[in-house]
């Protein structure tokens, strides 16, 4: 048996560490460069007026107000649609139908749906919600499409969270004479809630950044009114950014950069909320 030299082992390990470090630094550096670039552009346009103005033909006067409000509405309605459906589906799959043939079929479908490109969801939304259901190019159509898009993520995150609740706690509850629903309600859900919330908010923050499905469903690019109900036409930040980027005039690129910063800020706020919520509920849970 030939012994591998200690020196050689050390060299290989150093190389490996350097490689790993590189794998962290390169993407991080790229993001920073990108962010710096966007921020320097955005700084010329981003102010309070930008947030509270309607779009305009003159770049310097244009703002993201309707798009920002539209994005917030979309986020909330998407969450309102996707959370009950997703958590309900997860509870059914984890707690009621663990290994039936139906569960296997549903599971396979969910895994596949998570990999479907978002454009396809846009087409589905256009066909199903806008045309067949007759909801038109409305806020509700957009939110429903986004809800479909993130549903697989919500379901998978919720199932993961439900799975972390130990069997011993469920048994403790059953032994007290709790029914299955009482066990879920009293013991399982409170423990799984932080995980469910985190996963769901991350999913919604992904939905908020989606562009393609909204374009297909028919979000407008030039909106001079705020949405006044579920049925009203709408726009959203990614759409507005897309629109500005495709303008020939260079000044609109600055608007796009400022819009990107607003969108990033919104997503960052959502993610922070997710972390805060998780920490708050975890404190109660020992």
């Amino acid at each position, binding site marked *: 048996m030939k012994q591998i030299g200690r020196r050689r082992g050390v060299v290989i390990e150093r190389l490996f560490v350097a490689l790993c470090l590189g794998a962290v630094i390169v993407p991080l550096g790229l993001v920073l460069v990108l962010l710096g670039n966007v921020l320097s552009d955005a700084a010329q346009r981003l102010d309070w007026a930008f947030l509270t103005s309607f779009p305009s033909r003159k770049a310097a006067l244009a703002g993201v107000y309707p798009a920002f409000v539209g994005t917030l509405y979309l986020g909330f309605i998407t969450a309102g649609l996707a959370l009950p459906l997703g958590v309900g589906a997860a509870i059914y799959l984890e707690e009621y139908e*663990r*290994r039936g043939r139906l569960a296997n079929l549903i599971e396979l479908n969910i895994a596949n749906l998570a990999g479907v490109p978002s454009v396809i969801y846009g087409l589905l939304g256009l066909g199903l919600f806008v045309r067949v259901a007759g909801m038109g190019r409305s806020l509700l159509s957009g939110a429903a499409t986004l809800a479909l898009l993130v549903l697989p993520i919500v379901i998978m995150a919720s199932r993961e969270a439900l799975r972390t609740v*130990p069997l*011993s*706690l469920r*048994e*403790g*509850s*059953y*032994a*007290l*004479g*709790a*029914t299955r629903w*009482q066990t879920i309600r*009293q*013991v399982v859900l*409170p*423990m799984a809630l932080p995980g469910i919330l985190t996963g769901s908010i991350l999913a919604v923050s992904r939905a908020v950044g989606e562009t393609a499905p909204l374009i297909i469903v028919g979000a407008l690019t030039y909106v001079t009114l705020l949405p006044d109900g579920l049925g009203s036409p709408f726009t959203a930040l990614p759409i507005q950014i897309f629109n500005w980027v495709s303008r020939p005039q260079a000044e609109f690129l600055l608007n796009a950069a400022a819009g990107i910063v607003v969108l990033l800020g919104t997503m960052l706020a959502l993610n922070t909320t997710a972390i805060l919520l998780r920490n708050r509920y975890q404190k*109660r*849970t*020992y």
Partner: protein
Amino acid sequence: MVTAGTSIETERRRMTGSPCPAPGRLRESSVNSDVAATKFRVRRLAAWFGSQKVLHGLDLEISNRRVTAIIGPSGCGKSTFIRCLNRMHELVPSARVGGEVRLDQEDIYGPDVDPVLLRRRVGMVFQKPNPFPSMSIRDNVLAGLRLTHQLDRASADETNERALRSAALWDEVKDRLDEPGGGLSGGQQQRLCIARALAVEPDVLLMDEPCSALDPIATARIEDLIHSLRERYTIVIVTHNMQQAARVSDRTAFLLTGELVEYAPTDRIFTAPADKRTEDYITGKFG
């Protein structure tokens, strides 16, 4: 009362051949006139996990308001046996039960029996303490009752205190009832689980190796608690620890590979076992 006690004592001596039972037991036995009544009558009880048969037709009777210990090596079916007494066994997917278990004459596997209601009469304490982490100490105790009752503040407090006192935990936690149950020590958590089981006022308390995760001091407290509870409850305790079985139980059943080898008064099991395998097990030749 004294005469009743004497007659039971004589009977016990005759049956067991042991010189003298512990005085505490005798006094408690004499208090209850119906102690000898049968609580569980088990006939040809068989249990499976999938195609694997883990209990091979057990027959035994469990006396009312007595402590019955189930001993045997790992994997002999002790836990499965007591989980058949409150129908927890069937919660495992693919698990099946055959034979008959009667609780106070009633077949608990009968078509009209709701396992949820049965489990309110037959409480259970598990090997690993499992207080609900999202609930305070008080909410843990009341968790079972809240399933069925709207509790007002006063009766909730009363039940809470009574259950915690019964579980000998009240003095240690009375000032921090709103703190999470998971913050207690292991032994306290286990007594909290006992309090939680007692709060729904069951007839029977099943204990599945309740002390195996505890240190000797916490174990001694649980054993004292079992002594004090036997006046009011029928207790079936699974244990790995033969000294524990000898200390706390009135009768002991020895299980081996899913079969009942011997079931007799505890004194006799440990002093004059009838079966060679029992003797080998309690003298530590295997297991």
